């Protein structure tokens, strides 16, 4: 493969078994140069194991790992051009901050003067200029996190591997460091592989997200793609609240597909969202809560109209959360922007309402495959 066009990181059929547990199951992916790549999934889905195999701390049971086109599957961590920011930070407690950050440069025999300069730059990058002579236990959690980042980034690796780097911090600090991490990634232009179980964190920071479940990659794409067009119920639910309705295909046209729900309502879904299902095929149609509109009975117009009654409404100021029970018994969550300033008089709890949504806001997910 051409060295220059090769992706920074490529996994080819990577599987990792611990005894009977399959931690990572046949994962293949390519992470392009200078991207901010997130691996998102619930706890225990194999994110850390995947990252550790890229870093060289676990040997894959099967498969190949390439860095910039070079096979590194059996290469020890100290000869791989990637650096890790550990979830526990793993700073060297017996060394000062300065010497922690300088560790990698010393190993690489970078001349003293240059090393000192680069350490100072790295500490400046993470706003820790004044802390150089402290020991790690004299810093707060957030500051230790930054040291871990500086210690990795100062080596200018091909890629930086971050395992839930913000997981141990409180919410406010986490938001602040999320912004900082994205800024730093843009500044230094190094590929970041960021592992997290927080979908907001992944969506707000990454260019590309791989959603993992039970050791496999469920779907890979940009945050918008994953949010607007999830391919599985798992992805749809993991990236936010979503309404899923069982439906049967009744007709296919060039631009839309018509489906019937269990309570006899006719749905129209943009044709490019429905792959390959012939007439009579059963599907699940999904819509995000903010894409649904509510109207008093009879006043709704549009292609997709579902009749139901409001069972719950909570006014939150910026928006109102509704729960609507359809005739077929499906329960829909609806988020309405408070842009009109009306209260709950017209569509409060107990009212009959029509729920409408556009065919282009629908997505279709595969049937659940329960192979756990």
């Amino acid at each position, binding site marked *: 493969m051409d060295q220059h066009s090769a992706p920074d990181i490529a996994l080819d059929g990577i599987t990792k078994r611990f005894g009977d547990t399959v931690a990572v199951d046949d994962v293949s992916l390519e992470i392009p140069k200078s991207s901010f790549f997130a691996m998102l999934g619930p706890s225990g889905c194999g994110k850390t194991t995947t990252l550790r195999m890229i*870093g*060289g*701390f676990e040997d894959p049971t099967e498969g190949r790992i390439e860095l910039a086109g070079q096979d590194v599957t059996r290469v*020890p*961590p*100290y000869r791989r051009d990637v*650096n*890790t920011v*550990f*979830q*526990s930070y*793993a*700073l*060297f*407690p*017996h060394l000062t901050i300065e010497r922690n950050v300088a*560790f*990698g440069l010393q*190993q*690489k025999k970078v001349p003293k003067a240059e090393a000192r300069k680069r350490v100072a730059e790295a500490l400046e990058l993470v706003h820790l200029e004044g802390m150089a002579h*402290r*020991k790690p*236990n*004299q*810093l*707060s959690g957030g500051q230790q996190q930054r040291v871990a980042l500086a*210690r*990795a980034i100062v*080596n200018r690796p091909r890629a930086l591997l971050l395992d839930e780097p913000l997981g141990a911090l409180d919410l406010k600090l986490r938001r602040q460091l999320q912004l900082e991490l994205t800024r730093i990634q843009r500044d230094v232009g190094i590929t970041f592989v960021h592992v997290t179980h927080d979908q907001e964190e992944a969506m707000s920071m990454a260019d590309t997200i791989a959603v993992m479940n039970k050791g496999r990659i469920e779907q890979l794409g940009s945050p918008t793609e994953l949010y607007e067009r999830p391919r599985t119920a798992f992805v749809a639910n993991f990236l936010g609240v979503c309404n899923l309705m069982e439906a049967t295909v009744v007709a296919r046209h060039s631009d839309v597909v018509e489906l019937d729900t269990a309570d006899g309502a006719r749905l129209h879904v943009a044709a490019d969202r429905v792959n390959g299902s012939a007439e009579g095929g059963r599907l699940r149609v999904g819509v995000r809560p903010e894409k649904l509109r509510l109207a008093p009975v009879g006043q709704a117009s549009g292609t997709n109209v579902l009749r139901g009654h409001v069972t719950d409404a909570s006014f939150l100021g910026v928006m109102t959360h509704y729960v609507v029970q359809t005739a077929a018994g499906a329960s829909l969550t609806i988020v309405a922007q408070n842009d009109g300033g009306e209260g709950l008089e017209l569509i409060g709890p107990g009212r009959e309402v029509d729920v409408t949504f556009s065919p282009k806001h629908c997505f279709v997910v595969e049937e659940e495959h329960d192979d756990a």
Partner: protein
Amino acid sequence: MRTTWDRVRDAALGVWAVAALVYLFVPIFIVALFSFNDNKGRFNFTFQGFTLRHWEHPFAVEGLQTAFVNSLVIAALATLIAVILGIGVALATIRYRFRGRTAIESLVLLPLATPEVVLGAALLSLFLVGGVVRGFVTILLAHIMFTLGYVVLTIRARLEGMDLHIEEAAMDLGANEWQTLRKVTLPLIAPGVAAAGLLAFAISLDDFVITNFVSGQTQTFPLFIYGAARQGLPPQVNVLAIALLLIIVALMFLNLAVQRRAGQRDAAASAVLVR
């Protein structure tokens, strides 16, 4: 309100504590006192006057110097070797799962649970059957064997509390296994290693039972004392015993002081953080 009962209880507690301390320290005090005894003849049982004579010539008794030096050399060598082996065993059994790990663990710790006479007798028959000439080397081997368990236990305790990712971080930053051991693992377990070494040294220095089985013609300090005791202990023995005690206590305080300094740094650090 302090009742009479409270006062009685406090007084009783004080008396009790003093009694316990007296119980612990009187023997040592007697040993120290009789090292200054200007004794006439072989016996050193009645105090006959103060002298610094024995402290000035601690090796004035025949064979004492050799025995004492043997003990120190054996303790130092056994400690050194047991600590080096112990670091290896502790690292291997904590860090890695491998076939025979449990076997190694129990074999190393077994001498801790075995009565010394049994160990000594077993070693003696081993050396007899093997036709090994007993002496300095057999004593050294025996001492390495029975101190190893203590060393491994002490170092393991330190390793168990250590974040594994710290060593991975070193490798991540370009240090190979050996460099990681030297630059990260050893500095971090150093307090445990120091404590283990101190313990091994003290245990080796005062061992009598096992040494007696495997010593052949070689004398150690405890063996010498045992032999001399039958004809009356020369005061030089008291001098050397007290000197040893002082050395070991000094080492212990040094160890404590170093660890407390580290602890105070941590405490000061947390205080800064709380702010």
